[in-house]
């Protein structure tokens, strides 16, 4: 007998293995070696989360009860995959071009970035997924119970519940660890995708192994197997046409609309080309998963006792024949099926909940400006973690409420029917420009209500939610509203009845409300972009003018995308526009790009609302929309081009003006250079001369003597320093400097710089240790000089009550960088351009005590060393970024 303890050990070992695989995949992706993680094969395998415990255990049970009907669940997706050219190709393209994060985001984004649609679809999907999650918990629990029974422990309800709870907790931890490490839902779940791919192989291998064992080990070969089928209770072909067609449609539709399928099909898709491979490879996977189902069912019915649960034949068959190793493998297959589904489904649902429910509520409760002051990133990640726990908890509650006894297949179909209610809005949305937001809302709500009434609520059993009386006579005696016989149409299969009515009424409402209502401008814009995604991927812009400040947008973007990514985005745009630094011109195009990037993290509706807080009143108008209307396309094409041209000219003019301003400023400074030097030299000289005359006249008290000679001394030192700086700068500028290249760690240089600058006023310096062991091959003394300058600058200029300077070493796209960020009020935008020029002092220069040459020297040093120094806007206080040269 298989020891139950061995099973627990194997399951734990397997879970640890998945952790290691996920972790290794994350690590290799972080190091940029993750290319192989995004191959067509991995993509195809990740789609296998369609095959859950419902497939692994339930299909055999289904076949044992209803013959070949179980195949409909795999034929539907097969047809959809083979017809990828129609729908999936378009969905994937839209998903990528609009940075769609979930099925709710797709619908919301298509219908004018509607918040209400996002909420409705999210709630619907959470509701629909709950039975399905319960199903997974139920199957894992049952499989544990089988082994417990085999080793002599008959489990009671309490034991089962406890196992289900532990499984749910374990899954929540795994999903939170690997599913919410990054905020961007768009591309970065390498760890999870890899773990799923491994699980896909394990479950296929396990099922095929049991199948091969059954055909060749038990039946004695394929022809004997056929004979066994012919002799079994399933031998006769007696398939209901309505169920065959209805369920094929249902599974094909659910394949497109289930949040977890959308997640792997569209959101995690790295390359449209992968779809081509998956379009035949995934049906092949499904075929392989289905091939042995009937043989296993037939042999199970033949060999096992009448009372045996057919849902567990895959497990109990090898066990009863004494093949413990095979049973163990089969257990792992089922465990894989259940866990991979739960992980992806909870991630997809958590993304939807955080993007479409939590963030909008938070945004509207905080009012304008919240995106700048609040910590959106933490909020979103926190919301996702909570949602993962919450969704799994709901699944657990459903499992407890439903008693955990129902057939797996029946539970699965309830979920499918719920998810499919999004289909009309989704298909209508991507093929029909006339679909409107109100139409989509009406259709989905009607479908939702019909589904709840005819299938979901009755699933809790008679009298649990809907009283038996209502089931038989309808609510308030209204017979035509009976949950299982709407409009007095009886004699239909319960399942087909629910699918037929919910989808039909849903589509009718969707169509007619769409036809009767008029879309808002943004809906029309998005509609055109979705429907014609292959024609113009660019399309009209949702923003026509922009009054936003680049720095505000950068602050917001950093809070959502993370500092490094936001800075890269802004830097690239600024470079594209030919500007220095991190702040590009805020053009409507750039706002569009930014909104899309944000949408990849928080969904289209939220991103639009956030950007809208900065770019008020400039959203698209009906007139702008004519740009996408077919009739006027040509004229507008032309006027668009004119507009683009004039915008281009305006931008060029602005750049010229800016360059000119800078040149003027520079030449004025060059002109004034001598007069500046004169001023800087004469000022200390004045004090020296005046006090030496005073001292020369005699008659001072000893105190006065000390004080005045002290002043003379200080001013003489100041004069010397100024001359040193001037010489230093001129040597650097003329390129006559000889570099003394050595190796040194960043830590040592910073240590020296901090102690050299420590003479200034008290300031807390926070350093991120650990990373600082980085070795540089450069002129160590010169680089240290830059650090000293930056630290003492912060000491002089930081105006916070408790000045704090953070020194942070990390990798950015430019290489290794060292950020010096203080908590003062920072440097105003108009001054950021000139701080690196000579003699540019922004505040009271007496306080500074220098001549305004420090940063100019820093810049020259960095140029000589082959590094870079720049001002980093949008960090709260003043922040300087040093791109380190010669890093190893």
């Amino acid at each position, binding site marked *: 007998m298989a020891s139950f303890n061995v099973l627990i050990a194997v399951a734990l070992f397997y879970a640890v293995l998945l952790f290691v695989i996920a972790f290794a995949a994350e690590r290799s992706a972080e190091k940029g070696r993750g290319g192989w993680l995004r191959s067509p094969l991995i993509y195809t395998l990740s789609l296998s989360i369609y095959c859950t415990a419902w497939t692994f255990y339930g299909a055999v049970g289904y076949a044992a009860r209803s013959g070949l009907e179980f195949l409909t669940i795999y034929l539907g997706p097969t047809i959809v995959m083979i017809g990828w050219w129609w729908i999936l190709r378009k969905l994937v393209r839209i998903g990528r071009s609009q940075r769609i994060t979930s099925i709710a985001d797709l619908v919301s984004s298509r219908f004018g970035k509607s918040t209400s649609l996002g909420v409705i679809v999210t709630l619907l999907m959470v509701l629909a997924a709950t039975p399905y999650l319960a199903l997974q918990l139920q199957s894992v629990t049952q499989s544990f119970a089988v082994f417990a029974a085999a080793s002599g422990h008959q489990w009671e309800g309490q034991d089962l519940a406890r196992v289900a709870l532990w499984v749910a907790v374990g899954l929540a931890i795994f999903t939170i660890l690997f599913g919410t490490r990054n905020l961007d839902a768009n591309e970065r779940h390498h760890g999870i995708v890899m773990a799923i791919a491994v699980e896909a192989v394990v479950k296929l291998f396990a099922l095929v192994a049991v199948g091969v064992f059954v055909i060749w080990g038990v039946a004695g070969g394929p022809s004997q197997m056929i004979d066994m089928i012919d002799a079994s209770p399933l031998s006769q072909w007696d398939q209901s046409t309505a169920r065959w067609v209805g369920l094929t449609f249902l599974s094909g539709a659910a394949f497109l609309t289930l949040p977890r399928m959308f997640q792997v099909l569209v959101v995690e898709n790295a390359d449209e080309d992968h779809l081509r491979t998956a379009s035949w490879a995934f049906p092949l996977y499904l075929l392989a998963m289905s091939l042995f189902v009937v043989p296993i069912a037939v042999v199970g019915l033949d060999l096992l006792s009448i009372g045996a649960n057919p849902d567990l034949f895959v497990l109990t068959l090898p066990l009863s024949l004494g093949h413990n190793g095979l049973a163990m493998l089969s257990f792992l297959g089922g465990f894989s099926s259940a866990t991979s589904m739960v992980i992806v489904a909870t991630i997809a649902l958590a993304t939807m909940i955080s993007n479409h429910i939590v963030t909008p509520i938070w945004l509207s409760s905080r009012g304008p400006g919240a995106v700048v002051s609040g910590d959106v990133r933490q909020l979103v990640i926190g919301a996702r973690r909570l949602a993962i726990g919450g969704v799994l908890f709901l699944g657990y509650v459903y499992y407890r409420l439903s008693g955990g006894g129902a057939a797996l297949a029946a539970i699965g179909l309830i979920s499918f029917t719920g998810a499919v209610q999004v289909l009309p809005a989704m298909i209508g949305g991507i093929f029909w420009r006339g679909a409107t937001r109100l139409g989509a809302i009406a259709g989905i709500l009607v479908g939702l209500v019909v589904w709840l009434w005819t299938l979901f609520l009755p699933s809790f059993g008679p009298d649990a939610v809907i009283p038996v009386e209502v089931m038989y006579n309808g609510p308030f005696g209204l017979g035509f509203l009976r949950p299982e016989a709407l409009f007095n149409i009886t004699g239909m299969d319960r399942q087909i009845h629910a699918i037929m009515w919910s989808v039909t009424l849903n589509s009718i409402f969707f169509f007619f409300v769409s036809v009767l209502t008029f879309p808002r401008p943004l809906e029309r814009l998005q509609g055109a972009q979705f429907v014609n995604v292959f024609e113009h991927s660019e399309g009209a812009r949702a923003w026509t003018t922009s009054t936003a400040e680049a720095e505000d947008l950068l602050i917001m973007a950093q809070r959502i995308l993370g500092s490094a990514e936001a800075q890269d985005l802004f830097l690239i745009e600024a470079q594209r526009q030919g500007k220095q630094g991190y702040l590009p011109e805020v053009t409507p195009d750039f706002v569009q790009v930014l909104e899309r990037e944000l949408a990849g993290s928080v969904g289209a509706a939220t991103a639009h609302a956030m950007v809208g807080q900065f770019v008020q009143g400039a959203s698209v108008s009906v007139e702008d929309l004519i740009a996408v209307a077919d009739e006027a396309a040509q004229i507008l094409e032309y006027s668009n081009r004119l507009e683009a041209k004039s915008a281009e000219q305006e931008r060029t003019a602005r750049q010229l003006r800016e360059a000119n301003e800078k040149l003027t400023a520079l030449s004025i400074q060059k002109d004034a250079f001598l*007069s500046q030097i*004169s*001023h*800087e030299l*004469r*000022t200390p*000289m*004045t*004090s*020296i*001369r*005046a*006090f030496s*005359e*005073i001292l020369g006249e005699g008659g001072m008290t000893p105190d006065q003597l000390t004080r005045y000679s002290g*002043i003379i001394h*200080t*001013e003489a030192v100041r004069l010397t320093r100024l001359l040193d700086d001037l010489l230093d700068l001129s040597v650097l500028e003329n390129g006559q400097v000889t570099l003394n290249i050595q190796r040194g760690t960043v830590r040592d240089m910073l240590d020296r710089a901090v102690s050299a600058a420590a003479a200034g006023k008290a300031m807390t310096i926070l350093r991120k240790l650990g990373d600082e062991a980085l070795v540089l091959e450069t002129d160590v003394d010169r680089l240290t000089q830059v650090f000293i300058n930056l630290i003492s600058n912060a000491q002089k200029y930081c105006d916070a009550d408790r000045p704090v300077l953070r020194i942070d070493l990390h990798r950015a796209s430019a290489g290794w960088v060292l950020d010096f960020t203080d908590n003062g009020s920072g440097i105003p935008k108009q001054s950021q351009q000139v701080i690196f020029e000579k003699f540019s002092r922004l*505040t*009271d*220069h*007496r306080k500074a005590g220098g001549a305004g040459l420090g940063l100019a020297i820093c810049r020259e040093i960095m140029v000589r060393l082959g590094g870079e120094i720049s001002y980093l806007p949008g960090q709260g206080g003043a922040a300087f970024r040093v791109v380190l040269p010669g890093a190893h």
Partner: protein
Amino acid sequence: MGKRVLVIEDEPNIIEAISFILSRDGWTVHTHADGASANAKIRTTPPDLVILDVMLPGKSGFDILRDLRADDETASIPVLMLTARGQTRDREMAQRLGVTQFMTKPFSNAEVLESVRTLVAG
């Protein structure tokens, strides 16, 4: 009590030197280090003489001088301007704006004292 001199200058050591020289000679010396509020200060407590630096934080000495001359209440106050830049252009500018006397740093103490005496007496 001696006559009142207002020194508008932001370099503390120079302020100290001028204050020392003048108070030893019997003048009452007030000092002010900020350019932006200098005109208001002159208006509220009009001195007998203003000693004005050019490079000031907030507002330059030239701007202060122009505003001072434009204001009837302060237009007649004599102004001794001290500058470390000392270019001809600065001198011309100061004269156009109605400076009473212009002097470059570094100065001799005796020279400053002499000028102050002359300007207030005249």
